[in-house]
């Protein structure tokens, strides 16, 4: 049987979900026996080089680039999994929903005590910077998501067991301790 191919990305997330994946510790060595990694921040593959079986998404969408990456993942991954609260419902970054984005920018670049000499009132707006969205969107509002792994971050065992289940096709056991929030 050829190895299943996995891709991962971090959108508007804190990378904690990726760190939790690394918290499977020694099993990382088993993991690379089990699957092959394609596009992922942990390796140097920056664009999809083939169609993938499983895509793991950390974080929701807060800017135009997140949307672009998420759609690209949907296109290149047969199964897409929202990993963690940010991907599932926006998480901490979504605390900005309900506050006009202008107020957030003003606070960071104009009103803060250590930018008091920004006399020109510069707020970053270069063409190289993606457009901020009006609010932070959970992934399933942008593309179809097949599975959800709860937690902030989901525990290492949950991510591991879910990956094994997806690869082997065996049913995943979900005891309460594993799916409760924290």
């Amino acid at each position, binding site marked *: 049987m050829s190895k299943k191919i996995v891709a991962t990305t971090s959108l*508007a997330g804190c990378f904690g979900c990726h760190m939790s994946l690394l918290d499977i510790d020694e099993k990382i060595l088993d993991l690379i026996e089990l699957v092959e990694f394609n596009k992922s921040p942990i390796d140097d593959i920056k664009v999809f080089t083939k169609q993938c079986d499983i895509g793991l998404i950390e974080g929701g969408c807060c800017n135009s680039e997140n949307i672009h990456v998420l759609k690209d993942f949907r296109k290149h991954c047969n199964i897409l999994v929202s990993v963690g609260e940010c991907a599932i419902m926006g998480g*901490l970054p979504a605390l900005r929903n309900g506050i006009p984005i202008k*107020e*957030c920018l003003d*606070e960071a*670049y104009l009103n803060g*005590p250590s930018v008091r000499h920004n006399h020109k009132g510069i707020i970053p707006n*270069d063409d190289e910077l993606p457009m901020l969205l009006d609010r932070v969107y959970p992934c399933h509002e942008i593309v179809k998501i097949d599975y959800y792994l709860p937690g*902030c971050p989901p525990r290492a065992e949950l991510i591991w067991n879910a990956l094994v289940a997806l690869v082997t096709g065996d049913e995943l056991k979900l005891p309460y301790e594993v799916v409760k929030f924290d």
Partner: protein
Amino acid sequence: MGQKITIEPVTRVEGHGKVTIHLDDKGNVKQTRLHIVEFRGFERFVQGRPYWEAPVLVQRLCGICPVSHHLAAAKALDVIVGAGTGDGLTPTGEKMRRLMHYGQVFQSHALHFFHLASPDLLFGIDGDPLIRNVIGVALKHKDLAVQGVMMRKFGQEIIKATAGKKIHGTGAIPGGINKNLSIEERDSFLKGADPMNADKMVEWAQAAVDFFKGYHKANKALIDGFATFPSSHLSLVRKDGAMDLYHGVLRAIDTNGKKILDDVDYQDYLDYIDEEVRPWSYMKFPYLYNIGPEEGWYRVGPLARCNTADFIPSPLAQKELEIFKAYTNGKPNNMSMHMHWARLIETLHSAEMMRELLNDPDLQKDDLVVKGTKVKRGVGLIEAPRGTLFHHYEINDQDQIEMANLIVSTTNNNEPMNRAVNSVAVEYMTGQKEITEGMMNAVEVAIRAYDPCLSCATHALGQMPLEITLYDANNNLIDKKRS
């Protein structure tokens, strides 16, 4: 025809960023920029939250070193609840937090060196990108990979025992800590089956320093010459000038080693530090206010700390620091790749500190929290794995946060990282007809040396895009290449 090169995403660093390099008609590097493309708005949306939420909220800016944010926020709140700065806590409160922090530095440094940076050293900057990653290391250098994985695991287990959870724990609370360390927990770290015990971690950390020194000997030109440029350096140091990653006073030295800040109480940080905003990056540019934005920028992190500290208060790391300082005749070390060396010396120091703390009976005592008279404003600083981290909160009469200001470690390194990118781009790309993957990775290697956590820097995190786009002299897009 000039061109613009974009490297996007920058991989094997933590965060969202991209690099653009503009070349002119003759192929000379005209302009380089490291753009941070994420924005969170944390300073605004935390307003109105009860102050005690800060240590659990803020760490969700960054899952790579959440403990640093957790502790910096808690230290700011110590001031607010009247428990004083740093040394006002009970011995158990302070030492549990220190243990948590050294566990954090240990795991984060191990992650960076083994998982993110070692592939460049082991396979070469222009090695095959398909194996130039931690998986390649695991397949080709299994012993080394296992060491890295187990060192990270040890640090994460220490965090779990002190903070309650490996990622986004809850241990530190305003004025102290919410648990002590049981005898069973302590013994599991001191007497754990090989390799999961403190002695082994010290031994492995020493071996990692030796590995780097050996590599350095064999690759002097790369390690000494790559992205080297003069700068000032800033960090916390203990009152007596010792390296202290948890608490101290601010010290900065200039490129000749002259102290330009010393013995500064960080509650007054605003008298010394200011931030510049530039339109092309969400990450701000901090600098020393009295020197000004042009010359006042500085480096933070392991290299800066090994430069600013007079000595390290643990014997094995102190020995290594002496060798490190002797290499530049006691002058500040300005070589970006020596950041790896300094990081491993700190890894050894953290292992020694964990062992020392685990043997301290104060960790089993019950006096956990201190309370005093509440005040409205508190500043908390800590030396996070990536450098000095500033948290500043002000609260109102309803105990709600009214103002929050963060200057995170990677933001402090914004200008240095931009300089490093520029120096490598000029060296590798000037006059080249074709941009190779190896040249693009060289730019990333320079950024990676700073172990940037671009997530917390923009108060965001994730993959850092590196994309090289070629623009002509009139700014028309000619070519775009993702490495």
